[in-house]
């Protein structure tokens, strides 16, 4: 995408002249894929193809795509359990992501993790994490590990750690920010503020509801950005990552967007009024970005429909791949008990004897 000729402001009103049209169309394609994937994930959940919890990025597509556009391949990513979109935008194929939701052995975590625990070591996406804020200390430690690999600089690696607004109230968030600032770690914490921790508004859970200010006790600079604006998100994330790489200055970025549905698939979000829900739908970043691109002449309706259709098809294929993939076999239950095998590692199924009894009467 980067080798496309730059277009000009005059050509594409509303977008910077340095922004290649192909890049913008690529962002829309990613947003459309995430939108399709999440809608289908909800449907598959309702059809009991997906178990457990299932948290969707619906309404957060611009944030997801903007953040992932800022993250370099060499960087590391830790996310919360609301991770499907990040996995896709980071480069995981939709099939293995859907297969993970289906609990199949072809899933990105071999069916061991499910919706909340998407992982791809090669893509340096080191996990979605199911415990609220649980990823924050390990992400901080990953940034510590990077300080042993090389000097700060434009080409240095960095860590991006995503968390929700609700996670800013847990102790380890503050412990981690303190460590990152004390040790000058190359990490950017991104608070994806969708306004609600499950059903609790930010103002009811955070005494400082301007979440980007919560790094001030640690002298970590914060910035708030419109999470519905993919380019604004990307630029802010890029700038924070650059400070992390070149100065080992940890950063705190807050993106503000809205969840179009409940906390998880099964949550009807009755705590929001119909008026509020209607208002949020009117702000939906996916059609908004599509309309902006069409208005700017970057996308014509035919191309837009083609991209939408491609997203649908990719998700159709993903569902088929997941459905046709084998379930893990019970014999594989203990496959990842330990990384270093040791004697006497338990491998008993329920009801099995704990020890062999010599000469036991049958």
């Amino acid at each position: 995408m980067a080798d496309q000729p730059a277009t000009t402001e005059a050509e594409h009103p509303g977008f910077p002249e340095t922004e290649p049209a192909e890049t913008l169309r690529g962002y829309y394609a990613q947003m459309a894929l995430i939108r399709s994937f999440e809608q289908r994930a909800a449907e598959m959940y309702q059809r009991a193809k997906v178990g457990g919890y299932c948290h969707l990025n619906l309404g957060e597509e611009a944030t997801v795509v903007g953040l992932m556009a800022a993250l370099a391949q060499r960087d590391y990513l830790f996310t919360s359990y609301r991770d499907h979109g990040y996995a896709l935008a980071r480069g995981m194929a939709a099939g293995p992501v859907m297969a993970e939701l289906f609990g199949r052995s072809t899933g990105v975590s071999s069916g061991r993790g499910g919706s909340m625990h998407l992982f791809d070591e090669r893509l340096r996406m080191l996990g979605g994490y199911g415990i609220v804020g649980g990823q924050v200390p390990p992400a901080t430690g990953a940034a510590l590990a990077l300080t042993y690999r090389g000097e700060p600089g434009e080409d240095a690696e960095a860590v991006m750690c995503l968390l929700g607004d609700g996670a800013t109230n847990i102790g380890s968030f503050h412990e981690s920010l303190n460590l990152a600032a004390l040790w000058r770690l190359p990490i950017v914490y991104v608070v994806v503020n969708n306004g609600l921790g499950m059903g609790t508004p930010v103002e009811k859970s955070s005494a400082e509801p301007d979440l980007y200010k919560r790094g001030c006790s640690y002298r970590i600079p914060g910035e708030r950005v419109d999470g519905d604006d993919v380019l604004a998100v990307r630029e802010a994330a890029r700038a924070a990552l650059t400070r992390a790489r070149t100065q080992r200055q940890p950063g705190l970025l807050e993106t503000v967007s809205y969840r179009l549905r409940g906390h998880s698939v099964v949550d009807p979000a009755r705590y929001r009024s119909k008026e509020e829900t209607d208002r949020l739908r009117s702000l939906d970043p996916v059609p908004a970005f599509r309309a902006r691109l069409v208005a700017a002449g970057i996308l014509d309706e035919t191309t837009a429909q083609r991209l939408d259709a491609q997203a649908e098809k990719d998700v159709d294929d993903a569902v088929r791949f997941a459905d046709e993939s084998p379930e893990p076999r019970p014999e594989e239950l203990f496959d990842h008990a330990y990384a270093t095998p040791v004697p006497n590692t338990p491998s008993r199924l329920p009801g099995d004897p704990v020890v062999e009894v010599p000469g036991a009467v049958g």
Partner: protein
Amino acid sequence: MAETSYRQALHDTLREELLRDDSVILLGEEIGVFEGSYKITAGLLSEFGPQRVLDTPICEEGFVGAAVGAAMLGMRPVVELMTINFSLLAIDQIVNHAAKIHAMFGGQVSVPMVIRTPGGGGQQLAATHSQNLEVWYAHVPGMKVVAPATPADARSLLTAAIRDDDPVLVLENLALYNTRGEVPEAKETVRIGTAMVARPGEDITVVAYSRATVIALDVARQLAEQGISVEVVDLRSLRPLDRETICASVRKTTRAVVLEDDWLTYGVGAEVAATIQEGAFDYLDAPVRRVAAAEVPLPYAKTLELAALPDASDLTRVIGEVLDATRFSR
């Protein structure tokens, strides 16, 4: 063979591993400038510098979790928790993260980290600083938990733990730091997951770990003078648990007592007793007995602390009761 203290054995092992492998780093409260609350890390900051020996703020969840993430990227962090009581502040990172990440993500990464921490009472540290919480971690698949009783095992098990690719909790004990023993010059490798017969005997088996093993060995020596032959099985590893070595011993001696510093209910002794009744039922001449701490928050006052903690006389008495119940002739 050279005689050294448990403390020195731990120190020397950390130093050797820091020298051997650049990816080994130490983290913990007061381990650098202060040289460690129990001086295990004395001199290591000045030798290896602040990059390898990191003093942390007081934030167990933060720095244990940071060790998890550093380990995921290939470092080998060795965390010191000042006492196992403080591990409760980090338990989410230990149980929900360190112990889960390898399996939950389909084996894509491992978490080669060590948590060193002393447990145990008897120092008049009162209720919150005297607990034995190792069984909390030994309960959790994905963890490895070892509990060396001697300087030789402190060295070999800590070495094995640092070189292991899984999270390993190394249980130390405040009362053992000054104990002395022979440590082989050549590094003996003890495999995590194996118990050992610390003293062979014929008449009764005592199963123990950590400080309780030292007490059991003392009692065994005393009872030998009375013609009673006690076999002491030192568990060394609480997870995995070497059930075969336990059962093999009891099949031979036909009698068993478990000694543990911890509270009795739901403890290691309960697991060992259940293992024995399943693996050596037909061999048992008497019910398995457990000698464990009284189930109270450990009081400060010395008389009460002594009353609550199991000691050599408790073990001697219970061994006598088991022998008497089976009409053992001395």
